[in-house]
């Protein structure tokens, strides 16, 4: 395991009965990076994370956390976790929940410092069971960071958060990475990965199908997006060569294409009054869709 690698799955396979959850997966998490793990439902994201946390054992291959077995409690003392589906004790207040989790770590933040860092001080004395869904996620985030972890696993951290809370969480994540922490983020919000990730790993059918920076992943697909204000009908444009999808938003037409130059020439020839023409490279969302669709075929 390389010195700058904090967590690693090497040739890992895992089956649940007849279902292959992971199929020879190699994945590493490097120092001071935010790694976004993306994939459609059933791609193996949660299984991969559970192997790194020692919650499951691989059938073949190895899972290492800080160069050691994730089953060792000493290893997990460097890790913070925020799970998607967990119901904490509803009777305990937010400060008490953080105090409890902080007690597991050798040098934790005080509950007050953790709450200040995550903007949850106002929730301090509220029973956890009386919080809204978004407030629960904020409290769980405070619990995930209270042990000053070197590696943080976050599973869909912004589900249910309002815009303000989501921006606070993003800012805290950026600050943690700047301070040297590494973060593994699984999310269905591709704009979240696009905004935060230093590196993206795309899983499908238990395999790593692409890995790299957001720009590198976007460059893997040839799709581009054209948008323009035009009177041309959607159904007419949809049948042109190199056009993949067409959507109208009031007067604006959004076209996903495999060859932008050909389609732009066609558009300009077909509509003399065409305005506000924009051509963009595919976003992470389009790249993700294309990459995972190719694997599903």
């Amino acid at each position, binding site marked *: 395991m390389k010195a700058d690698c904090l967590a690693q799955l090497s040739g890992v396979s895992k089956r649940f009965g007849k279902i292959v959850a992971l199929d020879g997966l190699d994945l590493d998490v490097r120092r001071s990076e935010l790694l976004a793990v993306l994939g459609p439902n059933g791609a193996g994201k949660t299984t991969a994370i559970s192997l790194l946390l020692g919650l499951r054992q691989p059938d073949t291959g190895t899972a290492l956390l800080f160069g050691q077995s994730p089953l060792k*409690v000493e290893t*997990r003392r460097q*890790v913070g976790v925020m799970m998607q589906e*967990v119901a904490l004790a509803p009777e305990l207040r937010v400060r008490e929940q953080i105090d*409890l*989790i902080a007690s*597991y770590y050798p040098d934790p933040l005080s509950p007050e410092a953790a709450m200040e860092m995550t903007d949850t001080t106002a929730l301090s004395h509220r029973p956890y069971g009386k919080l809204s869904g978004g407030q629960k996620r904020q409290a769980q985030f405070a619990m995930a960071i209270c042990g000053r972890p070197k590696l943080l696993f976050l599973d869909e951290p912004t589900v249910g958060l309002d815009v303000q809370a989501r921006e606070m969480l993003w800012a805290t994540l950026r600050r943690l990475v700047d301070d040297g922490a590494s973060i593994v983020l699984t999310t269905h919000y591709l704009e979240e990965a696009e905004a935060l990730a230093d590196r993206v790993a795309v899983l499908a059918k238990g395999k790593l199908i692409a890995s790299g920076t957001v720009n590198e992943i976007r460059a893997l697909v040839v799709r581009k997006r054209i948008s323009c204000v035009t009177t041309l009908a959607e159904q007419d444009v949809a049948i042109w060569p190199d056009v993949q999808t067409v959507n109208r938003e009031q007067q604006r037409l959004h076209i996903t294409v495999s060859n932008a130059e050909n389609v732009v020439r066609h558009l300009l020839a077909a509509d003399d009054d065409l305005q506000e023409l924009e051509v963009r490279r595919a976003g992470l969302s389009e790249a993700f869709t294309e990459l995972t669709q190719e694997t599903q075929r």
Partner: protein
Amino acid sequence: MNTMNNGRLVRAYLTEAKYETVRMLRTPAFAIPFLALPAGLYLLFAVVLFGDALRMDERAGWFVFTGFDVFGVMGPGLFGFGMVVAMEREQGLLTLKRALPMPAGASLLAKLLMAMLFGSLVTLTMIVAAMTLGHLPITAEQAWTIARINTLGSLPFCALGLFIGTLTTAKSAPAFTNLIYIAMIYLSGIMFPLPASMKAQAQIWPAFHLAQLTFIGLGSTEVGGPLVHVVVLTAITVVFAGLAIRRLARVG
């Protein structure tokens, strides 16, 4: 920086136990019935309904006291573990704690201490009720002996409850726990004398052995020595706790 000194390790166990206690205190719907029901039922039967008869027959008085005392000790162990562990498993809390660096067994140890605390409180209320309104002649030494027996006597019920909690879902746990609880109350013979044909089967139930130990603690010489009962209760605790912990480690 990833090693815990002993002070912090002890603090982690104490914090877990502290918040387990806080949770129980904030759930009076769980705590009050378990604490009040045994002494309440004891007073109803041993004082209000059959007080005169029991005052004439000291042995029967001890029997009724022991029955409700053991009945009180069983509940927190069986339900506190069976239902709570099943719920925490299903809701992901135990999985989260396995992923976090919670010290080994801290959560189970906290629940164990809680059940033992409840066991001792139940026995204390029973002793007070028996000595005051029940007119049972319990000496301080006997009270101290049965308090210790019943505090430790919670353990096999905790182990049984834990085993149920690892096998059942949150929805089915109350039904399974009640099934074992009610069957044990009647089949162990702690509430009423069993017919001769049913006496042999009573010995498979931990409640029977705890009741015998309580009799011995109260000075009875009719039920033989304590060793066999201690061995059976210890074996039940070790076997069911071992099976449950193995299952928790494998499947969470």
